[in-house]
């Protein structure tokens, strides 16, 4: 009995530390005064997950007029097991999303990206560890989220960046996110609904690398929970910082174009004088 208990404890201990031990072998992890890893800094992925979480080859993007600049960049799936376990009816929704992506992708509209997409957008984000909480600021759309390290509570209200409760498991920062508005996961139309629960793990691999994992559980859309995994890279340049990317003005043309005076009146059969835009 005692032996079994010992074994169980050992197993739990190993399970807790195994990922860290394997991933962080021989690496030096910076620590705060209270002993937890210091993961502060400016971070970014170096992958194409934002184009498509699953395997994707290079192809023409949604806007041909951009030439090669608008083309899809190729990359391997970041999904454990390669494909996302959609329920059949949800797969049809993803296809509809893909077809309408030029106008409907929340990234194109400059909507806050939600979790986990905020992490693997092709723009940096910055982590701050205060005495009480962890704060993440994302360059894209100036999105932010607070990770409550104490005073955990259920999301009091739904929001674009969700409600994040965090704790440390060994050297991994584990964050449970819920209360998210429905959102897309990438430019390919992968998506979740407001019933999604996301469990993230940030595990330092050394001073300048972290492994990021996110498990997405949304029974409305998926047959089972599934996980993505990718490394994060620290911006090591001396002047690393976030700049503003206030993108609503870049989305106005696709969102409100039909309400411009000349467009609206022309569409209604009253072309404005001098309107040659046909």
């Amino acid at each position: 009995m005692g032996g079994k208990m010992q074994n169980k404890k050992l197993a739990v201990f190993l399970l807790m530390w195994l990922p860290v031990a394997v991933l962080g072998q021989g690496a030096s992890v910076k620590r705060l005064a209270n002993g937890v890893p210091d993961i502060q800094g400016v971070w970014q992925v170096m992958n194409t997950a934002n184009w498509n979480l699953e395997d994707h080859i290079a192809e023409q993007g949604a806007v041909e007029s951009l030439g090669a600049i608008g083309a899809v960049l190729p990359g391997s799936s970041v999904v454990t097991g390669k494909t996302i376990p959609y329920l059949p009816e949800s797969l049809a929704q993803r296809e509809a999303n893909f077809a309408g992506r030029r106008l409907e992708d929340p990234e194109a509209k400059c909507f806050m990206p939600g979790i986990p997409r905020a992490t693997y957008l092709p723009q940096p984000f910055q982590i701050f560890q205060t005495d009480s909480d962890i704060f993440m600021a994302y360059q894209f759309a100036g999105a932010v989220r607070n990770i409550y390290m104490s005073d955990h509570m259920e999301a009091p209200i739904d929001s674009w960046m969700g409600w994040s409760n965090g704790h440390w498991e060994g050297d991994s920062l584990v964050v449970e996110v819920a209360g998210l508005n429905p959102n897309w996961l990438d430019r390919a139309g992968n998506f979740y609904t407001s019933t999604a629960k996301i469990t993230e793990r940030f595990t330092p691999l050394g001073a300048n690398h972290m492994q990021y994992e996110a498990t997405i559980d949304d029974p409305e859309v998926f047959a089972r929970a599934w996980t993505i995994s990718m490394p994060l890279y620290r911006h090591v340049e001396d002047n690393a910082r976030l700049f503003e990317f206030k993108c609503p003005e870049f989305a106005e043309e696709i969102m409100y174009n039909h309400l411009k005076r000349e467009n609206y009146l022309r569409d209604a059969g009253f072309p404005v004088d001098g309107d040659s835009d046909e």
Partner: protein
Amino acid sequence: MNKCMQVSFWLAGVGALSLSALVVAQDDTWEMPRTSWGAPLLQGYWTNSTFVPLERPEALGTQQFYSLEEMAENIRVKIEENYDENLTGTAADVHYQFDDYGMNRTEDNITQNLRTSIIYDPPNGRYPALTDQAKANLQAYTEFRRDHQWDSAKTRSLSERCLIWDQEGPPIMPLGYNSTHRFMQTENYVILLHEMIHDARIIPLDGGDPAENSLPQWLGNSRGHWEGDTLVVETTGYSGRTNTPGLRGVPMSSQAHVVERFTRVDDSTIEYDFTVTDPTVWEEPWSGTYPFNSIEGPMFEYACHEGNYGIVNILSGVRLEELEALKAARQ
């Protein structure tokens, strides 16, 4: 709560707060709360909601403070105005029901002080004179608004387009509602997160020149340092598009230099002081001050652009009017 009760409730609050502020100022036993590394603690949730106007009513001249009695009367009038706006069917009720949106000011924690205006320098409590260039810009802006403000989304105001709220500054200014701010601290940064419209101003505390590694930014580029127990933040590098708080059509120019000072003076108060220098806009610098009062968190996400039905409805309404006029003319 009826009107009389509301007014007396608030007046009681004014008296209590003003008196307690005086008492606390003389409390020698108060000790500065500090972070784990010893910096003065500014972290927390704060409001700068206030009835004190940015500019002083001209009739008050150089009178910086109201007496308690004058302030009580002043606030009574404000509350009555607010109250009338909340009465369905009254002439003042041309807005929506404020109570439904938490926008009734009497539902807020309103900071109290006896100042007649936020601006204290120039001594008349009003903006200094605009430069000729700024006057010309303001005139051009006014004319553009008159002729083109309904043309498209791009000709609407920055706040209506959810790009930036004028009151985010710097300098930070009070708003009519949602005047909540979350301040956060690490050893190397202070972060000022404004509820409206979820912008985080990330201020490095390395004492460097704000112009170093800067590009023009809507919120400018801020660098901070501690002078004793006061956080001093200097900001330059504005984009030239952000409005001067309280004065649309006069953007903070690329020459603007703002110095802000945050001093925690008791458990519930940070004194905020700022000076704006912008030789292309103002003939002389101007300074202001007001308190931030602590409030309970949390602060919720203010998603402006994602739910911006306002801009769609405004433009749709104008287009429909124009279309109706054209149809009528054709008949």
